[in-house]
Structures are given as structure tokens and as C-alpha cells.
């Protein structure tokens, strides 16, 4: 059974830009745990340095992507302005349901949660395209962490754990460990 980890932007903000001792710890833990860390394309974009060059670079992720232990997912389909379409695929539906769920849980129900929702949608996509897979998500937002564990089962996927780091800076030391990256941890 393959375990995939999906990490939110805040995890990498805490680990710091390459070269960083925390990124090195994550690389060691990923190899030891026999896993990979996946990031949604939107998370990759948030962490990119788009300031000077035409081709953006990503000081947090590019080296790890080159080395092959972090994988950037291809962009997810769907448009936030679309309403929930019963004929849409599970990935698209999961993203819309997560956006709605986060607004429902918030005191400010008009915010755009489309990027937050990519974590749940990517989990559903990985389940959808891999038969023997477990997924662990990592974020520092409580409602998003709850959405990660609550929404995939609505599509028939129960092999998911969602780790919530509070305060966010605890991710610096807690995230890059074998325990947090493995199913039994």
C-alpha cells in the first residue's frame, strides 16, 4: 500500500527556502518513510518567486522536485464560478464542496477558498487514479484539516488522515519526521 502525503503552503513556509536544514530533514524522512510529498499546482504557484524572471522559480520546492521526492500535481480542472454539477467528476465536486464547507464554517462566508480546496481535491484525484493508496494531508488550518478528513469519504475514500499543526510554526520540527509522514505514525 502506497502512502502519499499532501502538504499545504504553510508547511514549506516553515521549513524555509533551499538550502535549509528543515528541508534536508524532510528529504531524509520522506526517503525513510518510503513516501512522496505532493503539492497542488496552486500551492507551488503561491511559493514561487515570480518577481524578476519571466520563468518563475520556486526557492522552496524546485530542488526537491528535481530530486524527485516532491511532486507537483497538474492543475485541477473546474471553475469556482460554476455551481455544483451532478455530472461533474469527483475531483471537481470535491473542490466545490470544500469551498462551500469552508465558507459555512467561517464567520466570513464570502471568501474565496479555491486554493484551500485544492488539498482535498488532490486527495480525491490520487484516490481516483490509484487503487492501493492511503493519503495523509498536512496543514495549519483547522477547518481545512477537518475538510481533508471529512470530504473524501463522501466519495467513497476512507483511507485518509489529516494532520493539523497549531501553532503553525510547530510544522518546522514536527512535519519533517517519519512519524508524521507514515500511516502508523
Amino acid at each position, binding site marked *: 500500500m502506497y502512502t502519499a502525503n499532501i502538504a499545504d*503552503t*504553510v508547511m514549506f*513556509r*516553515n521549513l524555509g527556502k533551499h538550502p535549509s536544514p528543515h528541508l534536508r530533514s524532510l528529504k531524509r524522512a520522506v526517503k525513510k518513510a518510503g513516501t512522496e510529498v505532493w503539492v497542488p499546482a496552486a500551492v507551488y504557484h*503561491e511559493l514561487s518567486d515570480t518577481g524578476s524572471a519571466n520563468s518563475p522559480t520556486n526557492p522552496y520546492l524546485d530542488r526537491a522536485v528535481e530530486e524527485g521526492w516532491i511532486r507537483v500535481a497538474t492543475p485541477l480542472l473546474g471553475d469556482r464560478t460554476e455551481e*455544483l454539477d*451532478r455530472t461533474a467528476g469527483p475531483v471537481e*465536486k470535491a473542490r*466545490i*464542496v470544500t469551498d*462551500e*464547507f*469552508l465558507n459555512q*464554517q*467561517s*464567520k*466570513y462566508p464570502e*471568501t*474565496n*477558498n479555491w*486554493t*484551500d480546496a485544492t488539498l482535498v481535491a488532490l486527495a480525491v484525484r490520487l484516490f481516483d487514479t490509484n487503487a492501493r493508496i492511503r493519503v495523509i494531508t*498536512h496543514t*495549519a*488550518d*483547522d*477547518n*481545512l*484539516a*477537518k475538510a*481533508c*478528513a*471529512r*470530504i*473524501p*469519504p*463522501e*466519495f467513497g475514500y*476512507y483511507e*485518509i*488522515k*489529516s*494532520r*493539523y*499543526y*497549531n*501553532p*503553525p*510554526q*510547530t*510544522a518546522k520540527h*514536527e*512535519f519533517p519526521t517519519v512519524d*508524521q509522514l507514515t500511516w502508523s505514525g
Partner: protein
Amino acid sequence: MSYDTEHVRNAGDTPGVSIGIRTFAELLENPSLAKLYTSMRGSATATGPELVDSIAVSKKTVYDYLHKLEQAGLISKVGDDGGTNVYTAEEFELTVTVRETEVSITPELVEVIAHKNEYPAVERVLEAHGIVTFALVYDLVKAHSEGEVTIRQIASLTHLSPGTTYDLIEALYSILDLGEDESNPTTYTPDDFDEDEANLLEEYAQE
């Protein structure tokens, strides 16, 4: 005598307190002054010599600040300890309303501003976006620590860039010592959610 006029409300005492607006403004600009006030507020009483030992400014500056804070009504003399004045900090709330936006400046905000030299994100947001945005982020970060909003919702509500929002969140969590003391992280699984809870997919499809 108490007053409840258009501009002055007080409870049971003459409105004798002097309010030095300039010093209130300086509290937001000068982290050393903010630190002195915050330090006094953190203990029941304080004397000049105690504050000289705890604040990284000269003795003369400490006494200048004490005079300034007392003139503004932000601290009061409450006793004498062998010829040394004993002070206590007064609570305050300064409310400003401009173009239908109301912001309350409180000692809790001043406490964060006292750290602006140590956390560049605090200084950056105060200078580039002003006190209203800063106060809004302060409240939203506290809400985030209670699980009520996400980091991206904070960025969206304050119009700050994601990078600045992450930096400020890290600073405020650290200054305010927010977050859980329990072992980290918390792990949620599908079993944590009651089977009786609404099926979100169906609920939204019906809507």
C-alpha cells in the same frame, strides 16, 4: 459627578483625567515607549529603578517616558517606596471612526507593536497598510488560533499578499503565544466525524 454628554462619558468621577493624544499616537510609533507601558501593565506596580533594569533604554529616557505616560493619563502614581514613586498602568481604549470604519486601539495591540523591531513583518504591515489593517489581522490571527478562519481567508479579508500574511501570522503566534500546548499535530480521521452529520455533497447539490 458623572457625565454623559455628547462627547464625554465617565462613571462617578469628575472628568479630571488628562488624555494626551500625542502620547497615544507615539505608543503606536515608538516600540520602546510601548514596551515600557506594556511592561508596567504586566505587573501590578512598578518603580523607575525597576523599569530601568528591564528596558533597553537609558535611565533618562525611562524617566522621560514615565513623565510622558503620566501626563497622558496612561499611568498613575499609586505610592511611594522609600522616596521612589510607585506607578500602575491604566487600561484604555481609543476608538477612532473614519469613513464608517471603526478601529479600537487597546493595550493588547500596543503589546504587539512593542515587538515591531524584533519582527519585521509587524513593522512592514504597520507602515505600509496602517493601524486598521494591522488591528484586523490581529483579530483574525486570534480567530485562526481558535480554528475559525484559514490563513488564505485572512489574506483575502485583509488584502495582504500571501507571503506577508504568513510572516505576520508567524510573528503574532509567537508574540501572543497562541496555539495549543498539547502534543502536535492533531490528526483527524474520517471516524472523527459523526455519521449523523449532514452529507455535504448531497446538501450542496440540493441547494
